[in-house]
């Protein structure tokens, strides 16, 4: 069994990156391999947003990610620097910066680039999905 670090750099719906990454993550798991970490970077942090309303006839990607993460207990990291500047904040950050509210779906963890370093060194393969 091999482990994969999957990096997602695109927002849901504004490019196909996140959808490809989602399908790839599913295929990794179905193949009997593991997802060491999902790392959402730059616009990829929008996949963790609880505030996205998808187009009516399309799958709800953020919720699909949330479901996948919950079902397989995946480590899903959202890069803090990318998240803050895009308004994707958890309750703690919202309180700290006195913002209206937190907006991250459960299961996603806001953390730093150190998690990307760890994932790169530890996982057997690193695959990036970019807009």
């Amino acid at each position, binding site marked *: 069994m091999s482990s994969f670090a999957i990096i997602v750099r695109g927002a849901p719906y504004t490019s196909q990156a996140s959808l490809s990454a989602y399908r790839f993550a599913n295929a990794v798991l179905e193949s009997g391999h593991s997802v060491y970490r999902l790392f959402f*970077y730059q616009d990829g942090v929008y996949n963790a947003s609880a505030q996205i309303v998808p187009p009516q006839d399309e799958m709800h990607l953020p919720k699909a990610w949330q479901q996948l993460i919950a079902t397989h207990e995946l480590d899903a990291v959202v890069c803090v620097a990318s998240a803050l500047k895009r308004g994707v904040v958890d309750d703690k950050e919202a309180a700290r910066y006195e913002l209206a509210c937190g907006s991250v779906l459960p299961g996603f963890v806001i953390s730093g*680039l*150190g998690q990307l370093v760890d994932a790169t060194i530890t996982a057997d393969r690193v695959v990036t999905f*970019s807009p």
Partner: protein
Amino acid sequence: MANLKSDKVVFMSSTSPWSPSDPSACMDSLLTFAVFDIPATLVLHGEGVLQVVKNQNGSILGLKTLAKTFGALGLYGIDEVMVEARALQHYGLSMHDLLDAADMETADQPLRFTSITPAQLASLIADSKAVFNF
């Protein structure tokens, strides 16, 4: 099989210094790997070579100047940046057109820029654990 145990990483960057997110995302990641002592090489290709043209001044537009961040690379143990030969040629640039000590606000040895060919890039890639392309 080559280098399954390699810990080296390569960062490639191909966007102009004025593009919104990619250049600084690349730099932030690169520096984080350097902080964790993972050997990381930066390769500027395509429009990315424009990131290191000398005399840039974003303040004219009220913008930050990415070129200034290259001065910090030395502090993180990165003293060389690879620049794609073909891209330099495309833009009519020579090594003399690239950042010097004055641009990087450092009294120490300025960053060394080294031209890289596709074959050399292939070797760099083959020698690495992972490659990031911004």
